[in-house]
């Protein structure tokens, strides 16, 4: 039970804001007893990311904190027990269970419910709201049999609900909006039109200016009938037409409420009874209900301050927001609508790629007043700061949305010009000053350390890039030389350490740490040094398995749930019918999920760690060898079928791909490498999207390098044209070894080239013209690596000591991890969602 003598704070409502209030109060003070009543059976969960519930997240994933957290922090929590009455005279609350709880202070965080318009037929089966996890369960169950569905409401929540319908596989999804455009409260008409076009391209059907007159169907919805006489036939309807504050308890207790709902509060968040506060979506402040979570958190902070005789007040909240709706960036900030003569607008519109940007600037051109961004909201953080802090605009304000063209733009300088009070993380109310102080005073020089210090970036995460820029900017301003070192244990860059270990003939991590490092190492320098040692000597990596990342330690790729995937090499993507049958037999025997990968080979998922050596013993007996899919090394050389079959093929691309793959297989590099060989200019192997790619020409082969797919696609660039095979391999040897020796840890070839002073011209000079005089060394070094190739799995399978390491329980090698669970999809097993 709660200790006596401390004042008791009772919180009614266990939603996001109610939870945040508890968290903030606990962080500041232990002088109160906290008692929380929640009407729902669950502890508070994250409603902002509710749609992820359909994307595979479980209800537990969405929890703000597990139930144990309340217990551990001494909070008395009553769930599934709604408060029915507040007795202000005796300062008690009465719960449905009969419990009577006295309070010294009462915090109402009762939130809101979905607003359901008074349309005839809303009671029909198949009409639902989008608000709680229970609502989502109902929608999910109903959507399983629905072919078509509509969402009533084209605002923020409505579009979220529409995404949910798409995610649930409702083929025919509609959005119905009363206003003539989408999101009328946040963005301007042109922005709405751009958003609409993007959503329609994704398959949503959008109906505007539609007033729903009634919902048709016998007991069960079959259509929406509109005021203009038109009809939309649907199997289900999700209503998302706004929120209604839950003020009924307050009303019953005689507290002042607004005409259209909401508990009236002052700047201290006090209701008309000074010992009762209201926060979040149930509170009416200055005539406004704030339906976003960030202002709710700010209100919670105000109450925490008030309870401790602080002076913090709530003075309204900036409703600027940035979100991703069905994959489309949407942001509005400041005053998005203000127009002539009170402001001048600069608009950029690119209908082809679906980008719309508008900024409103003051008539004198000095300040930014607000704006809208659709399709590309990267500039949002900086623009918002420019508005909030009244920063002077540059002479060409259009640069803000178009980027500086022509001149040199120094990134990051803009961030440092913000005033100290600029709010950077609005979820946790962290200012620029707090972040810079944490760098200088507390030594928080990484985003992780910053999160620990002041929680910046732990909410929606949108400010993380800006936090990073501020950390680096502060360090630079301090005159700190930001040296590109591995980590706290090695004061060298990867390239420096590579040379040191080579010159001193160092072959183990322990020796490297003793000679050139401090401390005991960490998860950053261990695999980085492991990669350097492999790049130097190419010895068996499992001999130093505890410095390898888990994939390299177990020679397989770890997947969700703790199982591993197995991928034998199929050089060039070539595989015989016998090998296919062997794979099928082995996958069936060990119950593995099989899939063709993007690199033209077969991946087998869901293997228990203790089965890995047995699986490989069988694969090796069938003539397979390790595919190194787990390593930072060459993955595959993809090929088109080439001149052996294709009527357009100029040369035999398959044979060349196999030759290249076998030449470089197993060599460890700073990051993974992918390759491809195409037999003609049609480029079926997509060689120009690879770290190195080869394309046949009339006269020989073209060699392209430093391309990348991934998050930032980049085409490979031509290193040399019309080469014969021997010359091509010679250039490739030099190129690869130069990359292996000089790149930073986990740096792909594309980024490496982008950071290389002199770029492609310099690289060409080194590799082709030997401008550094190192080509003979590069060739000798890589031939040592090629010579030392071994199938890592063969070494393990044949070595009982190494095999022993592939168990889950060291004291019960026969027992498999009992917590490992699988689900089923389309007749194959899949990992269980986390």
């Amino acid at each position, binding site marked *: 039970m709660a200790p006596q003598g401390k004042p008791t704070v009772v919180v009614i409502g266990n939603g996001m804001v109610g939870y945040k209030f508890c968290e903030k109060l606990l962080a500041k003070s232990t002088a109160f007893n906290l008692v929380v009543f929640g009407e729902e059976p669950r502890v508070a969960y994250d409603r902002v990311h509710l749609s992820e519930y359909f994307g595979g997240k479980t209800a537990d994933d969405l929890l703000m904190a*597990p139930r144990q*957290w309340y217990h551990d922090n001494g909070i008395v929590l009553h769930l599934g027990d709604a408060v029915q009455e507040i007795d202000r005279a005796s300062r008690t609350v009465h719960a449905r269970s009969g419990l009577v709880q006295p309070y010294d202070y009462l915090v109402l965080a009762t939130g809101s419910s979905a607003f359901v318009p008074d349309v005839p037929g809303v009671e029909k089966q198949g009409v639902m709201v989008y608000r709680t996890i229970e609502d989502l369960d109902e929608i999910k169950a109903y959507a399983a049999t629905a072919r078509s569905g509509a969402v009533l409401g084209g605002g923020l929540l409505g579009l979220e609900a529409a995404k949910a319908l798409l995610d649930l596989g409702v083929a025919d999804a509609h959005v119905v909006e009363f206003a003539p455009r989408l999101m009328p409260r946040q963005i301007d008409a042109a922005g709405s039109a751009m958003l609409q076009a993007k959503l329609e391209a994704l398959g949503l059907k959008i109906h505007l200016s539609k007033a729903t007159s009634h919902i048709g169907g016998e007991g069960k919805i079959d259509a929406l009938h509109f005021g203009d006489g038109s009809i939309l036939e649907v199997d289900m309807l999700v209503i998302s037409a706004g929120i209604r504050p839950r003020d009924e308890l307050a009303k019953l207790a005689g507290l002042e409420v607004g005409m259209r709902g909401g508990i009236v509060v002052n700047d201290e968040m006090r209701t008309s009874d000074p010992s009762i506060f209201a926060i979040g979506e149930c509170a009416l402040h200055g005539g406004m209900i704030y339906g976003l979570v960030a202002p709710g958190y700010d209100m919670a902070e105000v109450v925490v301050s008030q309870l401790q005789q602080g002076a913090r007040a709530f003075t309204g909240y900036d409703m600027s927001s940035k979100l991703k709706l069905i994959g489309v960036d949407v942001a509005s900030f400041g005053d998005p609508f203000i127009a002539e003569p009170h402001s001048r607008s600069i608009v950029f519109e690119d209908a082809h790629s679906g980008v719309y940007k508008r900024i409103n600037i003051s008539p004198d051109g000095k300040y930014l007043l607000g704006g809208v961004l659709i399709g590309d909201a990267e500039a949002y953080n900086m623009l918002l700061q420019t508005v909030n802090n009244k920063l002077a605009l540059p002479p060409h304000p259009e640069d803000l949305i178009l980027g500086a063209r022509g001149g040199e733009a120094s990134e990051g300088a803009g961030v440092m010009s913000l005033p100290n009070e600029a709010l950077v993380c609005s979820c946790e109310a962290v200012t620029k000053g707090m972040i810079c102080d944490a760098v200088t005073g507390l030594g928080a020089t990484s985003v*992780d*350390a910053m*999160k*620990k210090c002041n*929680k910046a970036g*732990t909410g929606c995460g949108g400010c993380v890039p800006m936090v990073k820029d501020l950390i680096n900017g502060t360090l630079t301003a301090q005159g700190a030389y930001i040296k590109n070192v591995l980590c*706290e*244990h090695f004061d060298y860059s990867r390239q420096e350490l590579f040379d040191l270990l080579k010159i001193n003939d160092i072959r183990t991590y*322990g020796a490297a*740490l003793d000679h050139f490092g401090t*401390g*005991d*190492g*960490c*998860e950053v*320098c*261990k*695999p980085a040094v492991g990669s350097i040692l492999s790049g130097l000597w190419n010895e068996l990596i499992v001999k130093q*398995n*505890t*410095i390898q*990342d*888990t994939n390299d*330690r*177990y020679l397989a790729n*770890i997947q*969700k*749930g*703790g199982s591993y995937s197995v991928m034998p090499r199929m050089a060039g993507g070539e595989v015989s019918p016998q090998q296919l049958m062997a794979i099928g037999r082995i996958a069936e025997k060990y119950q593995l999920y099989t899939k063709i990968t993007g690199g033209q080979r077969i991946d087998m998922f869901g293997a228990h760690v203790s089965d890995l050596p047995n699986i490989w013993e069988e694969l090796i007996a069938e003539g397979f060898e390790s595919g190194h899919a787990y390593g930072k090394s060459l993955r595959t050389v993809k090929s088109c079928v080439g001149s052996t079959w294709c009527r357009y093929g100029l040369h035999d691309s398959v044979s060349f791909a196999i030759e290249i793959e076998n030449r470089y297989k197993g060599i460890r590099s700073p990051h993974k490498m992918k390759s491809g060989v195409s037999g003609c200019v049609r480029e079926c192997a997509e060689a120009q999207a690879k770290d190195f790619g080869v394309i046949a020409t009339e006269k020989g082969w073209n060699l392209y390098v430093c391309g990348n797919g991934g998050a930032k696609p980049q085409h490979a660039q031509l290193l040399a044209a019309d080469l014969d095979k021997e010359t091509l391999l010679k250039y490739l040897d030099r190129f690869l070894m130069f990359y292996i020796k000089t790149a930073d840890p986990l740096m792909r070839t594309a980024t490496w080239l982008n950071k290389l002073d002199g770029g492609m011209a310099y690289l060409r000079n080194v590799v082709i013209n030997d401008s550094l005089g190192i080509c003979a060394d590069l060739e000798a070094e890589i031939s040592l690596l090629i010579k030392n190739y071994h199938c890592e799995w063969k070494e393990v399978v044949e070595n009982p000591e190494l095999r022993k*390491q592939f168990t*889950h*329980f*060291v*004291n*019960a090698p026969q*027992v498999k*991890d009992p*917590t*490992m669970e699988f689900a089923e999809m389309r007749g194959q097993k899949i990992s269980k969602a*986390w």
Partner: protein
Amino acid sequence: METLTAATWLPVCQTADVPADGGACALVEGEQVAIFNFARRGEWYATQNLCPHKQQMILARGMIGSTGEACEPKVACPYHKRTFSLLTGECLNADECAIQTYPVRVENDTVYIGWA
């Protein structure tokens, strides 16, 4: 023989079972415990095997190391590199719950953990 209040010393494995400067998972009274052989420092640690971030039974396969001036020993989860202090169990680089730690002692090449 030293004793901890309300704890029993359970033998869980042999010293040779746990790789130097690495970990292994042991099944103890139906629970999964990660045992770490911090050979570089001549120290042993034990924690729960479950990483609280994504609820995965994995910490024994994580890389160990140390951080800060005081060289606080730590383990990094292989999945998303959450790191935890081997002394206190506290998460060092994110807002995860602390993990359970257990006392360890080694006698005649047998590893014992203190089980409450």
